[in-house]
């Protein structure tokens, strides 16, 4: 966090100065470790085992927050008799189909509840081959729906209640197992376990911060699930000082999922409709909206969005233009798209602030895809590698591609930086912060808003006379933002106002005002209220000294300016604070409403003793002590009866490429991971040819794939070239010299880097075996001032089944002293490795 979020890290320092204990768990000793009270090195790719160990510690020592657990989680829910755990099936859950390598989740449902809508429902109909399907990211922010309330055993003694199942599932994760898998000595593990449990409960809370070190794995979603289970057991969700904080990698990556640049969700986490199944609005809402909880109002959110897009054209009698929405026909995720480029299916590509030629896993695959397009638009601040690969990329040097044979027409359009345009960033804590323009963009540089607005305008003009039905969605789109100044910059505030939404009486102030009859419009329901009363609340900047400690006057958080989600859980079931020290939101009997320092993330006047009538819908179906209002049962899910493609509980699987076998089960890896074993994407087998683990990461001095930093002299001089980090022990083993060169090899290719020998990387010892790790910052490429090979050349494409994220944080390699071969001999060099590892020859080289 200190490395990649130095500005946010000031608050960690402040907390530490006030007595908070900071624990850092990471394969490498980083600037964060330097500031931590406790640093725990572990093998890359083993965090589920580490967190699982903590869960086992909590359960077996009864350190859980019992009242919270019983009232607010699904610990007491009873599961079906047919459910079988990984403990019973040697690493698989019940419902696995070895043919399709996927699960039928029917047996994961609660007893007595109607069968959960299949987590694979969408996967049955999208994707061409079984493992290449889409998952729970399509369930919106509420996760999957379940058909009915579970039977519960508040005593937690029923052998099939979630609590008991959990206990049994994690009982294997002993400190000794943690040592064997992660390389963390038991004593060290125990210190962490004690610190976390001592700082959880009524009086204290513990927070977890994570980033792509947790997500970029073939079990990435389950990493986060493991942390969620731990935090729910300890009662650390919905309370001040608790939570699980995703540190997003760029200024507005949170914003880019809220108002998504993802293919499978619409604004506000509404799933994207499917091509063949969801033909009309009613059917779509019926299949995807939860019947209970706030997702029960999805129709209002969606109709209001359609009204924002198509205005007067969207009416009751034409299903509010639901038909105009694009439909999913398969996996259109970024890696599938690259494969489609190579196969010739995808012909055009926009790159907006992305540099996949060096910044995405298996960079060669990315370049081969881009070399096979009709057109490519690159909008960036600098001439990045993704704009120049056709004349100076590694394949040109190696002779694999020739410039004159690449048909892709590349358009480079200079982009305006954030200081040259206005708009909002939505950051980690869902905070929308407005930024103003400081200077005009130079030359022909333009904002993304300018580009997309005027592109849309020109397309609309070209379609003016068209009578084709297929052009109607574009022709009828409301596209009329006011423009200002010489360059005709569209007003970002007008866009924000549209996102906020309008009703008959002007700007809306809260999403509960949204209607499903077409009387309201709203571009993104969770952002409704950011422009309440016609005022840009994202631009609010009330100083901390002039307001409460929760600071509601600084910018605006979605939803409804609530700063902690599910904060009803900060009070006990009766509505009283769990403790004076941790009081946040509580029920006032006099005022008959929830009061406190924040806005309640709950209906403000729903009393703690409210019990729903049978058959109640949406939020009315949740009781006054159900804090998790986006879930259909109002509870935090320790066990996920639906919604995940790879199991209802997390369990440790080895990374796809690992030097060790899974010590837990015969099943080594996540059985449902997405594998693409083909030319240009071969995998390292687990034998001795690629004996070392490597992990990729960022440094403070550079930004991601370098487009924003490698051309700046002041940043480039601070980290002037690509390097790898190795331990003194590995340096001795492989005769690597400090500041000398090393060649690092995988089945994909070989790259070279200067060597930093450092004590900050250490060999890990697990039951008599030593595992060495190699650290590779991934900022570099051949362009710019500060140059070097791209670490992403080494990575393969292998994905988490749920969200299609690449496994970039743990893979295997070899490392040898000296520079890599050049030109054609590079391929021959890598071929010799492939032969030794028994990988099939690349057919037509």
């Amino acid at each position, binding site marked *: 966090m200190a490395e990649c979020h130095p500005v946010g890290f000031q608050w960690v320092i402040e907390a530490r*100065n006030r007595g908070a204990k900071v624990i850092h768990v990471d394969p490498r000793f980083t600037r964060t470790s330097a500031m931590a009270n406790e640093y725990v090195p572990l093998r890359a790719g083993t965090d589920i085992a580490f967190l699982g160990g903590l869960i086992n510690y909590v359960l077996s020592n009864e350190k859980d927050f019992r009242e919270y657990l019983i009232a607010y989680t699904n610990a007491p829910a009873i599961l079906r008799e047919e459910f079988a755990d990984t403990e019973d099936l040697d690493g698989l859950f019940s419902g696995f189909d070895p043919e399709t390598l996927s699960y039928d989740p029917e047996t994961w449902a609660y007893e007595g509840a109607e069968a959960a809508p299949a987590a694979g429902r969408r996967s049955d109909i999208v994707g061409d081959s079984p493992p290449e399907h889409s998952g729970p990211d399509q369930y919106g922010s509420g996760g999957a729906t379940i058909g009915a309330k579970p039977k519960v055993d508040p005593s937690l003694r029923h052998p099939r209640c979630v609590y008991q199942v959990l206990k049994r599932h994690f009982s294997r994760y002993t400190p000794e197992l943690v040592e064997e898998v992660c390389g963390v000595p038991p004593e060290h593990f125990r210190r962490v376990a004690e610190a976390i449990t001592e700082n959880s409960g009524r009086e204290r809370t513990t927070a977890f911060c994570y980033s792509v070190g947790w997500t970029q794995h073939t079990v990435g979603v389950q990493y986060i699930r493991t942390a969620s289970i731990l935090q729910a057991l300890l009662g650390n969700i919905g309370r001040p000082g608790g939570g699980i904080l995703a540190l997003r990698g760029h200024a507005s990556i949170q914003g880019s999922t809220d108002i998504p640049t993802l293919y499978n969700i619409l604004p506000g986490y509404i799933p994207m409709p499917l091509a063949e199944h969801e033909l009309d609005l009613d059917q779509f809402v019926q299949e995807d909206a939860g019947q209970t909880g706030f997702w029960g109002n999805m129709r209002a959110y969606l109709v209001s969005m359609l009204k924002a897009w198509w205005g007067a054209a969207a009416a009751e009698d034409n299903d509010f233009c639901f038909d105009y929405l694009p439909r999913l026909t398969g996996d259109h995720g970024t890696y599938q798209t690259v494969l489609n480029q190579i196969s010739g299916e995808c012909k055009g590509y926009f790159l907006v602030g992305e540099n996949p030629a060096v910044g995405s896993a298996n960079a060669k695959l990315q370049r081969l895809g881009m070399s096979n397009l009709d057109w490519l638009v690159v909008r960036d601040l600098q001439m990045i590698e993704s704009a120049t690969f056709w004349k100076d990329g590694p394949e040109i040097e190696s002779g694999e591609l020739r410039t004159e044979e690449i048909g892709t027409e590349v358009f480079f359009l200079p982009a305006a930086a954030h200081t040259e345009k206005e708009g909002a960033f939505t950051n980690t804590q869902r905070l929308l912060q407005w930024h103003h323009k400081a200077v005009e963009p130079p030359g022909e540089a333009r904002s993304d808003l300018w580009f997309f607005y005027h592109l849309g305008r020109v397309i609309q003009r070209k379609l003016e006379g068209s009578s084709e039905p297929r052009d109607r969605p574009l022709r009828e789109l409301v596209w009329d933002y006011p423009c200002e100044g010489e360059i005709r910059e569209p007003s970002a505030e007008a866009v924000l106002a549209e996102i906020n939404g309008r009703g008959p009486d002007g700007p809306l102030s809260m999403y509960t005002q949204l209607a499903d009859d077409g009387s309201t419009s709203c571009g993104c329901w969770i952002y409704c209220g950011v422009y309440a009363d016609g005022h840009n609340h994202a631009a609010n900047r009330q100083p901390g000294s002039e307001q409460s400690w929760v600071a509601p006057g600084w910018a605006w958080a979605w939803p409804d300016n609530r700063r902690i989600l599910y904060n009803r859980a900060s009070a006990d079931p009766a509505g009283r604070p769990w403790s004076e020290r941790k009081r946040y939101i509580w029920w006032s009997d006099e005022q008959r409403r929830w009061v406190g320092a924040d806005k309640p993330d709950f209906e403000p006047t729903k009393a703690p003793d409210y019990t729903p009538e049978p058959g109640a819908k949406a939020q009315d179906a949740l009781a006054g002590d159900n804090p998790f209002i986006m879930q259909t049962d109002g509870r935090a899910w320790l066990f996920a009866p639906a919604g995940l493609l790879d199991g209802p509980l997390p369990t440790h699987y080895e990374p796809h490429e690992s030097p060790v076998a899974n010590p837990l089960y015969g099943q080594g890896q996540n059985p449902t991971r997405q594998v693409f074993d083909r030319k240009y994407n071969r995998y390292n087998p687990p034998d001795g040819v690629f004996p070392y683990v490597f992990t990729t990461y960022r440094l403070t001095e550079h930004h991601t794939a370098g487009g924003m930093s490698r051309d700046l002299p002041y940043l480039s001089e601070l980290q002037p070239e690509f390097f790898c980090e190795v331990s003194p022990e590995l340096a001795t083993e492989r005769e690597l010299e400090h500041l000398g060169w090393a060649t690092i090899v995988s089945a994909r290719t070989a790259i070279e880097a200067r060597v930093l020998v*450092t004590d900050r990387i250490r060999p890990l010892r697990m039951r008599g075996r030593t595992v060495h790790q190699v650290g590779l910052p991934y900022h570099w490429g051949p362009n710019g001032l500060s140059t070097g090979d791209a670490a992403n050349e080494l990575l393969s494409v292998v994905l988490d089944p749920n969200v299609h994220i690449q496994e970039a944080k743990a893979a295997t390699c070899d490392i040898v002293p000296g520079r890599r071969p050049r030109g054609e001999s590079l391929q021959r060099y890598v071929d010799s490795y492939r032969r030794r590892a028994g990988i099939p020859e690349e057919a037509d080289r």
Partner: protein
Amino acid sequence: MSSVYRLSGLLADPAGEAGYRDDHPERVGFFTDTSVCIGCKACEVACKEWNLVPEQGLDLLGQSYDNTGALGADSWRHVAFIEQRVPDPSVTSSGTDLGMPGIGAPEQPAAAEEGSGMRWLMSSDVCKHCTHAACLDVCPTGSLFRTEFGTVVVQEDICNGCGYCIPACPYGVIGQREGDGRAWKCTLCYDRLGDGLEPACAKACPTDSIQFGDLDELRERADRRLAELHQDGVGEARLYGRDPDDGVGGDGAFFLLLDEPEVYGLPPDPVVTTRDLPAMWKHAAAAAASVAATVVLSFLGRRR
């Protein structure tokens, strides 16, 4: 004015000593608390941005994450990174010794000290704006002067590149810029101070490792912080350059360190070099000769 004031010893008001009227502003400075420095180098970049200091070359130095190396004409802030091995409790304590070679430093006793086997010190160095500034004392043109804020600044339009100041500085802070010949160093953002702004580095520092303010107040703050750390068991914490009684009469920019000054590349006991003026003149004569040669070369170079 450079010849009349005291060259060493206690001096409460260097600006007053330099001739400013009694209503001159309070003396300001930096307190750099290295115990919260995260090594982000925002200070280095902010300094260069604000003061238009040129890039100094792209060299991978291999000194941990430090690729700046030292203070100089083109680096007015320099963040040092020091990697140290310390006892690792997870390897050495309570019966969990795995019978293998330890990761932590084996020669050290199995201390109960909390640690990770590793310590990474980071510290942002800067011109000390000494109470007795030798650079200023030896400057023949008056380019180096004491400001009304008690800081020490080179005026770029007056400096003739004689270079006397360079060996005079007991900290090796000031440097001559290549291809320019003039001496450059931290101005404590003199232009910003005039506008009531804090220096760029202090403004950019996310963790408040660099604190700017009235020197008296900073010294009190530093004393409090030191006491706090000592109370928390960080016995190795110490202040450097805080003492008005030291060899330079105390620094305008002083530090809280977590190890001996030498570990950070700082002289353990700096003394204002003008205490030994005769020796200085020898250096200066040599410097003058080399500057003369540079000037001739630059004239030749311009005749293209």
